[in-house]
Structures are given as C-alpha cells and as structure tokens.
C-alpha cells in the first residue's frame, strides 16, 4: 500500500481499533499505545500489506498485543472483586453497559477478543479465525463460552444486588 493509502487507513480504522482496544483493556493510555503500536507496525510493512488487508492486519496486531499485555499484566480479577467495585462505584443500580464492561474484563483475553470482534466489528466466524489465528471450531467455542460467562456474571450480579 502507498503512504496515501496508509493515511486513508488511519482515517477509516483508527476509531474502530481504539474502541476495540479500549473495551479490551479498559485503560485509555494502554488502548492508545496499542493503536499507535498497531499502526506503527503497519507502517513498517507498508510496502508488504495490501490496502484491502489493512484492517485485518491492524486488528490482528492489536489482538496479539493485547493478549500479550494481559498475560504480562497478571491475574484476571476475581468475580467478587468486580462485584465489589460495581457496588462501591454506583450507589444506584449500575447500568447494563457498565456491568457488561465489567463482565468482559472477567473473560480470558482470547475470549474477550473474539466476543469484541464479533459484536463491535461484526466479523464472521471465519474472519475472526483468520484474525486471531484460531480455527473455526475454537472461535465458536470461545464465543459460546464467552456469552455464557457474561450471562452468568450478569445473573450473579442481579442476585447480589
């Protein structure tokens, strides 16, 4: 792709990539770093990546960067900690968006990426498999297990509140 096509990709995909990273990491600084890193890698291979593949290249790079970041970051917070945080930060009943964001944080990184790619970007199973390097069956399992885990989280929070 040419430098002009690269800059067009910035306009077209930077927001979506930032949303993907922000939902995944729940940290604006880390999300910005992921976006910067993803575009930096795309720029370093600007002569090898086709313009039509720019979006998938960006999301693949961001996915792997975030999975590595989560692995380096250590443990996933326990469910009880998430519930306590939600109760402490909101005197009234927390809205569903906040609950769902909190629920996403409890998912394993790969499951989270798969669910986010499915819901936010509307990718098909095959596309998610290509982006994440998983096979089709693994993608389906991660989506089904991720949904079940989110439902369980929300259900338990309903009981608690």
């Amino acid at each position, binding site marked *: 792709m040419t430098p002009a096509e690269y800059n067009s990709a910035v306009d077209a995909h930077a927001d979506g*990539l930032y949303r993907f990273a922000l939902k995944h990491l729940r940290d604006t600084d880390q999300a910005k770093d992921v976006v910067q890193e993803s575009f930096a890698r795309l720029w370093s291979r600007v002569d090898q990546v086709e313009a039509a593949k720019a979006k998938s290249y960006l999301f693949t790079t961001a996915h792997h960067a975030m999975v590595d970041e989560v692995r380096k970051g250590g443990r996933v917070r326990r469910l009880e900690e998430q519930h306590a945080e939600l109760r402490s930060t909101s005197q009234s009943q927390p809205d569903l968006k906040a609950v769902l964001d909190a629920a996403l944080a409890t998912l394993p990184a790969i499951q989270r990426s798969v669910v986010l790619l499915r819901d936010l970007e509307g990718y098909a199973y095959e596309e998610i498999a290509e982006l994440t390097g998983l096979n089709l069956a693994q993608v389906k399992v991660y989506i089904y297990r991720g949904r079940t885990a*989110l439902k369980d989280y929300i259900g338990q929070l309903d009981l608690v509140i």
Partner: protein
Amino acid sequence: MKKRIDHSNYEAWLLDRLEGRLSSEQERELEAFLLANPDIHAAEGPLPAVGMGDDRLARFDREGLKRALPPQGVIDADSLDDYLIARMEGDLGARQIEELERFLAVHPQHAANVRLLAATKLAAEPVAFPSHASLKRALPPVGTVNVHTLPDHLVARLEGDLDAQQERALAAYLHQHTDARADWDALQRTKVVAEAIAFPHKDSLKRALKVIPLFPRAVVRWASAAAVLALVLLAWWFRSPERPQVAQAPGPGLNPPAAIADQDDRADLTPAVEGSASEEHRQPAPDQQRPMFPDPLRRAPLNEPVREVPHEPAPQEAPMAHVPEPDERIDPLDPEPVLVAQATPTAAQGQQPVASGAAANADPRSLGDALAGVLRERVLDRPADEQRALDATDAVAAVDRGLKAVAGERAGLSVQRDDQGRQRGFSLRLGRNLAFTASR
C-alpha cells in the same frame, strides 16, 4: 474385637468380609446370622464395586453427552443456553427457532435466562480515537520525533531530509534515549560507501566511427603542422615585446627596400617620397606620430634612434646613398637592435625620381610596417595602410585564411571569447573529419 452381629451392624460385618478382614470364626458367625435372618438379601450377591461389571456407557448415554455448535437435537434445559446463543448469533435455522420458541412458551421459567443472554450482546457505540494526526505518516516525516516515528526520523536524518527544528528535536531525543542512539549508530553503518571499481573491459564497450578522409593523411598532417607552426610564429611575432625592430637609420638617399613591395605599394607606403623634400614632409604625419602599437609593444619612432645614443650632429656630407657605418657605440654583440642596411636604389627604382635624403627620411615605414601592410591587404583583405595595429585577432584570421587555402573551406581556426574579450576556447579544423576543439 467386633461387637456381636445384629441388625444394626451386619453391614459393617459384610464390608469387613468384603475387604477380607474377618477371621474364620467371624465368617461362620456372619453366615449364621444371615441364615437366621432371611429378610437380609446381602447374601444374594456381592456388593457392587468400582471396576466390576461393564464400564462402557450405554449408547444412548454416550450420544446424550455429545454437543455441537450450533446445537442440534432436542431442546432441553441443558442445551437451552446453547440454543439461545445460537439464536443470537444467527446460527439457527427456521425450524430450530420455532422449536425454541415453543420450548420457551412451555417453560416460562427460562424467561430470565433469555433476558440475561440477550443482555450480553455488546452495543457498538462510536468511540473516537483522540489524535488521528499522530498516526499519520509522511516521507520524509513531519513533526518532531517520538517513539513511533523514530525510525523514519533516523532514516530522514541519514538522507539529510530533516529541517533544523527536526534535527534539534532528534538530537535531544537521542541524547535522552540510549536505545535510540544505538539504533542511530547501527543505521549509520548501513550507508554504502562508494568504492572505486573499474570495469575491466571498458575498451570492449567502445564503438569506433568510420571516418572517410577527404584528403590523404599525409596532406592533412603537413597542413596541420604548417598551421600550427604559422600560428606559433605569428603569435610569437605579435606578442613578443622584444621582437626585432627595424630601424631606419637617418641619412640621405635611403629608400625602403625594393623587395618589400612593388612600385605601387611603395608609392602607397611612401607617400612623402614624391613630394618635396621639405622639412615639413620629413616630419611624420600626425597619424604617423602616434605609436603603431600599444605601449608594451610600442617601438621608438622611426626618426629616433633605436637605442639611446648621444646626439651628434648629422653629417653634412653629399646626399648620396650609402650604407652608414655602424655606430661603434652600439655593442655589435647585442642582437637586439638589428639594423637593416638600406639598399642602394636600383635601376627600376631609378625610374622614380630619386628622393633626396630628406625625402627618404620622411618615409616612416619600416620593414615591419611593410609586412603588416602586405598581410592586411593580401591576407586579411583590409587596406594596407590601416592604422590599427595587428593583434592576436588578426593572427587568428591569418591562420584561418591559410588553413582554408590549404584544406578548403571546411578548415580554419576560430577562437571563442567571452564578453570581456578573454579567450574561452578555440576550434582548429583541419578538414571535414579532423578538428581540435578546446574550451574552458
């Protein structure tokens, strides 16, 4: 020791027998108890134990454990979540959706489950990245360096594409970041040095043009040599400030040499000869009093002696032509003042009125003037009595004419000069196929 066997502890006895911990007496006692109490069916068979019997699941049970995504088969409480998720993901067919809706209608207790799963669908609300400009790139890079644009800035610095502000920012960045400095050092080593490598068979690449000479090579050579020789001689003649001067000794009866010019020429050259021999005519004309050459080349007026000698009164001898005695005060070994002996008037000259000595002295022409006149008239096609001194341009024109006379119109010599008259080059053409050109 175990207690006596009864209805409350007979099972413990049975377990002990199973594990082989009963003695023979206890075995007999247990058998007697079981016979006395036929309502206890423990004796009908061994107690079930792990690993005994068929450990393979029934086919029905095994099939019941299988799962598929999207789900298939009968909808029940266990598979309900998979069906609900499959409906969210659009994985169910129309028939499966109808079955699922019928199941949910029959089992309203699962409505909460349906609501929770529907809530797990994330909404793709718009989120804007705060600084698109920081992601954009250009070559050479725009703006100051940061961790993401460092490679581009380093390459641009190597190529000399950074402006002063970017250079300062990059220098400060490198000063603060050791890793970046290492990258810069490594990048500098990637510069390929231009080595001097010569192609070994360069001559084999050259192509020669076929030259068809118009003249035999010997003629061209001789013409070239003659032209160069003439050029050198003329240049030496007109340039040398110490060139031989022709002086005409003052004295009566001296005429210009007849060999220099014919009668007509002599008439032109000696306009005063035919006139009266008055003092007025002996004096050079005002034009003739002006120096013929510029100062460096200026020679003494013909009325003056070539060399400063003490003035002596002119001899009052008869005005007959004679060869004057050489001045003994002039060093004969000094080659500089070459005195040309004036010939005695010939018979042909005698047809002309013999000029008196005063009239002869009035002729300001010298041998050099005569030669210059001939050159002007015969070679340069200019008036012989032109007052302008011959110079280098005339020399070039003379050579040019000479070359044309020898080798045709294609030959010649030309000198290129700039606006200030300085030589910038020359072109010496010795024929159609031979030329020498040089330029500065």
